């Protein structure tokens, strides 16, 4: 490395940087997604703290007197979401094996199942019979399910991008991160729902 070329650093532009050393076997995008999920879990943690204080510390009735939560409907909805995790997995495995049909069908069904979940949830909101400002219990119920619903929406957005790219002929057995990374997020959204469902409806 001659010092002249260092001083005229801009001359090197066209060449681009030397490839960075890979100091870990972990893929950068996967690691990024995992860290993002950790911070998402903590965001849910903040709302679960609110739930804990409202239900346990303040000792309010659960659910608020005169209201009921549709455990059965939400339970079926849980099944819908869990099955979407399976189809997501199918899509990824197909992508890795170069099975284009499986990948496209898997992504599409995952998307449709997720959209169904969201629709059922919105329908539930309409028929619950209590509003977000009625009581602290209502607030945290809508708060947690709404936060989760927002995550489903983001997940659906990511899935729709992956689906569009899949139908436009992207992804291959060697290059399938665009399926894998949204997939991880989707599984997270799923697991989070199971926790939300258990704490809000079942317990």
């Amino acid at each position, binding site marked *: 490395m001659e010092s002249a070329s260092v001083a005229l650093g801009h001359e090197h532009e066209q060449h681009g940087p030397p490839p960075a*050393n890979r100091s870990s076997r972990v893929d*950068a995008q996967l690691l990024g997604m995992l860290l993002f999920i*950790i911070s998402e879990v*903590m965001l849910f943690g*903040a709302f679960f*703290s*609110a739930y804990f204080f409202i239900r346990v510390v*303040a000792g309010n009735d659960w659910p608020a007197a005169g209201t009921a939560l549709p455990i059965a409907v939400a339970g079926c909805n849980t099944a819908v979401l869990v099955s979407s995790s399976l189809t997501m997995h199918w899509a990824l495995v197909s992508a890795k094996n170069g099975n284009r049909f499986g990948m496209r069908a898997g992504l599409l069904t995952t998307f449709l199942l997720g959209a169904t979940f969201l629709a059922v949830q919105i329908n539930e909101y309409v028929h619950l019979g209590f509003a977000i400002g009625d*009581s*602290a219990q209502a607030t945290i119920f809508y708060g947690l399910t709404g936060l989760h619903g927002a995550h489903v929406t983001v997940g659906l957005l990511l899935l729709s991008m992956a689906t569009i790219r899949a139908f436009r002929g992207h992804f291959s057995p060697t290059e399938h991160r665009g399926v894998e990374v949204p997939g991880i997020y989707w599984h997270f959204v799923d697991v989070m729902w199971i926790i939300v469902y258990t704490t809000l409806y079942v317990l």
Partner: protein
Amino acid sequence: MTVAARLRAPGWYRAMLSVPLGIGFAFALVVPLRALSHYKPVVDGDAITTVALISTPLAFLIGIGCFDYWFRWASGAPTVPEDHSGHGARSWRDYFRVNTDHKVIGIQYIVTTFVFFIAGGIMAMLMRAELAAPGEQFVDSNTFNGLFSVHASLMIFLFIIPVFAGIANYVLPLMIGAPDMAFPRLNALSFWMLPMAGILMLASFFAPGGAFNTGWTSYAPLSVDMPLGQTFFNVAVQFAGASSVATALNFLVTIVTMRAPGMTFWRMPLLVWANFTTSLLVVIATPFIAGSQFMVLLDRALHTDFFNAANGGDVIMYQHVFWFYSHPAVYIMMLPGFGIISEVISTNARKPIFGYRMMAFSLMAIVILGFTVWAHHMFVSGMFPWLRVPMMITTMLIAVPTGIKIFSWLATLWRGVIHLRTPMLFALGFITMFTLGGISGVMLAVIPVDIHVSDTYFVVAHIHYVLFGGSVFTIFAGIYHWFPKMTGRMYDETLGKVHFWLSFVFFNLTFGPMHLVGIDGMPRRVADYAQHFAFWNAFISVSSFFFGMSLLVFLYNIVTSWRHGPKAVANPWRAHTLEWQVSSPPPIFNFDEVPTVVGGPYEYGVPGAVHGVFKEKPAVKEPAVAAD
């Protein structure tokens, strides 16, 4: 370029177009919704502003071009190979664009945060002018409340936290031998979210009812009942928080996946360790403040009952959630500074860091313990009484790893060949001032003492000893230390020393007496006070004006040296870490060839020691016989 092309290309023209669209979006969303739900009035200023506060900054970010690449990707367009067109700066104009070069972003960060530092500083001067004598001088008490709230929020969320991210943005990839950060576009987005947050906070002064005035802590239910200005704070914190999480994630991935060959974790400079641990704190803790502000926002906008005790809400919950972030946040504001001090001290004492591994372990210990002490801010809040003593004990415990670091720096200085340059002076000033702040911290951890001095000027003294004498001194040390690397020019040493001594002396004259009036019972966050405190307050105000002036010396030095200072050589401090082995400023892609790391970063005075080598040119090497 034609006008139409300008409006389509990312940049300021498109941003000027998208901002009104953002505001229009708020109208288009709120007005029909209110009409449909039969709310009166249909056009409601507060509701529209609340939505606009979120949609307008987002519209600006879209307009300036933060999302272009991702939009392309999302639409399924073929991936374009990176042409590095958004990389590097050729003129000052490139600093006003979405740039993906970590060196450009670092400087964007530092300059932006200093602008907010100055804004916050001016507010501090106004407050001290008001407090110079009992009674009302210049501002009424509502304005005063706005001043201290915006002052504190700017200093914490727009200066100390992000300026460290800026310094690390510049030097961290260089230090680990990486060509850039792991996610350069995310990095650019992180930067551009910051001015959004700062402008929102400043803009709150123009809101009806004045700026938000519940302090940087924004306790509910007070913050729920405050006028519109409060919403500016709630939203601004979301932008600042998102920026800080995205940067932290970027640092973590960069450190894990992009270190140069041979750069094991135990060969990383302590600045890298410090940012690694800080980033862990940010990723884990920041969502809690986001959550707390979302809840306040919901209570304000949708009249939910998180903090409405009449409907079963819990107000103390706010403080738990808030401090679960904000205590770790004090370490977010301190650990990167610890890293800077380690670099500066070992380089300027020409000695290896004493107990390098212990330094890294104590950082990790602080990260873990930092999550177990939050309720020491709540001793007088009426929380569970049984939580007090455990929190007192953990708080005292956390002083142990902090103390380890202090002793390690002292041991590094011991028999070193000390070069008293400006960064070193600030580092030594930091050690003394931060120790004092740590001692008042341990005093505050003692429950009976805290009950006595809670919400008095003693707390104000404590936070300024740790935040100004601590964090800000490390920032100055870091800016002077890396100034030659960042700008390619040397700063003026004499002015630097003048700046240090002025700030050191007037810092103590300003904040030292606050301990006394605090123990005497002068409450914090009030515009007026008893006659009894008049003398010391006049004294503090005068000192604070001189203290404020000392910053002018710094700014003059930086501006003139940046423009006309003597050219800097690659390695003016004869340091070993990798950023000093490339030219000043570094070439556009940092390294023409990735170096190989063969030894520790601080082997000063160890005969024959090297840290990194290039294939063709060895990096600085200590002489076979120690010459210092």
